[in-house]
């Protein structure tokens, strides 16, 4: 299977860092087209730095990054940026347009898309994130969740192959978080989009096909959500919330009960408990 993102032996150092200090050390991984990969790690672990390397916002100290068959370099960086859409953490600081529609159109303007085409794509994108009634609104009058949905509409309009979410839900209230996550799931269902989400949110990580754990600039572990979630209380140190079933498992253990070692979803947990009760 060919990969859409291929990262090999990536090292990154910030300009102010000494020669032997690295923010990212020897990171290698691949992402298949249409896959949803969650990148987790505590604050300061280097996960956002990794994301910014992927579309050349930061330039690696060593290693190669290949996106959709193109090796990232000064010549290919603008090409690659049209293939990668990126939504950042702070809803306010990435809102370029003076109104919702202007913001959605920003990437398209940059690509020099003709206006007729732009109008169509902007309208369709706003409809997809259910913000069509807000097209002429100014950002100051939107909630955080709405602003992030506008950012997503901007991505939909630009039609990238890859979507990178850099803690896109972390500054939102629970409702905004749900709305944004629902929009991402729906975008994923509507096209063969590849998603990389950097997150602490357990629901977001659980939506992924695969989870990469970054710690101190190194790729520590990778696996399916179920494999990673087995770590139970260790997850908090990895920068992830504990799934509820794991929390309950830990509490049952404290009560002296025998619990299964494998990861259970909430439904799995409920079923297991019911089983116990029926066998009583």
């Amino acid at each position: 299977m060919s990969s859409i993102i291929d990262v090999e032996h990536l090292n990154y150092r910030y300009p102010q860092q000494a020669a032997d200090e690295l923010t990212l050390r020897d990171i290698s991984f691949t992402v298949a087209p249409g896959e949803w990969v969650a990148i987790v790690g505590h604050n300061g672990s280097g996960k956002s730095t990794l994301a910014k390397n992927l579309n050349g916002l930061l330039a690696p100290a060593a290693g190669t990054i290949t996106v959709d068959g193109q090796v990232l370099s000064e010549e290919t960086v603008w090409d690659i940026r049209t293939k990668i859409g990126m939504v950042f953490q702070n809803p306010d600081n990435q809102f370029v347009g003076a109104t919702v529609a202007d913001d959605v159109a920003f990437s398209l303007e940059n690509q020099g898309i003709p206006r007729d085409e732009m109008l169509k794509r902007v309208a369709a994108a706003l409809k997809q994130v259910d913000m069509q009634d807000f097209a002429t609104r100014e950002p100051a009058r939107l909630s955080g969740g709405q602003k992030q949905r506008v950012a997503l509409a901007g991505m939909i309009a630009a039609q990238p192959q890859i979507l990178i979410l850099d803690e896109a839900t972390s500054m939102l209230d629970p409702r905004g978080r749900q709305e944004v996550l629902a929009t991402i799931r729906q975008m994923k269902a509507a096209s063969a989009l590849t998603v990389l989400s950097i997150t602490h949110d357990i629901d977001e990580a659980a939506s992924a096909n695969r989870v990469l754990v970054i710690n101190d600039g190194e790729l520590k572990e990778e696996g399916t959500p179920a494999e990673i979630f087995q770590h139970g209380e260790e997850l908090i140190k990895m920068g992830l919330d504990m799934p509820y079933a794991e929390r309950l498992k830990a509490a049952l253990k404290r009560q002296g009960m025998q619990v299964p070692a494998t990861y259970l979803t909430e439904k799995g947990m409920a079923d297991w408990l019911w089983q116990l009760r029926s066998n009583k």
Partner: protein
Amino acid sequence: MMNKLIFGRYVPGNSVVHRMDPRAKLLLSFYFIGIIFIANSWLTYLVLFAFTLAAIYLSGVKWSFFINGVKPLIWLILFTVVLQVLFSAGGGHVYFQWGIITISQSGLINGVYIFCRFVLIIFMSTLLTLTTPPLELSDAIEYILMPLKVVHFPVYEVALMLSIALRFVPTLMDETEKIMNAQRARGVDFGEGNIFQQMRAVVPLLIPLFVSSFNRAEDLATAMEARGYQGGEGRSKFRILKWQMRDTWATISFAVLTVALILLRA
């Protein structure tokens, strides 16, 4: 405090004036300021007032906004009027004279004319800003600056800067209020004490505001780069301005106004 400022604030609406092309509104407002100086008699000022009030009426914006627009400037206006009255060497009957101070009939009349000019200019520019979203104004400015591209003036970049600046005004106002509250909660009194104390009180506000603005600017630059922004060249435009029939009519009415003023001039 900032909320009392009416001047420069947009009041949403759907009137003919609201729907006019911002270029027409901007240019005609400037033109209006020019032709005010044609007026030199009661009759011509009356015509100008009638015209302005008709425009305000068409906009459907409440009168109180315009009165409030004049209020903050009233002392400046009165000061200018008083200077004009006291120091103009005009003719006509002299009511009072003391050294270089003269109060004469023509001085008084000129004073009233100046007052009228101020009020007319404020009314018309308030009408412009109340009925035109800042963004449309920046579009209009971009269009008007377009000829400067010939001399390699970065018109697109300046227009984008202007629109981003406008877009961040409310964000920064919120931020200012938040930081002010946080520092007030730590015992800072803004706007109290002598000048020196007041200046000191501003430091805990300005530094965080600068820090956060720089962070925002950096984030914004990153986001713009990620979305493929490489400068003005080769960009297409989403917003376009449309000159419509009503704009032509507005222009014609200004022409008629000009002719009327010239004919009615004393």
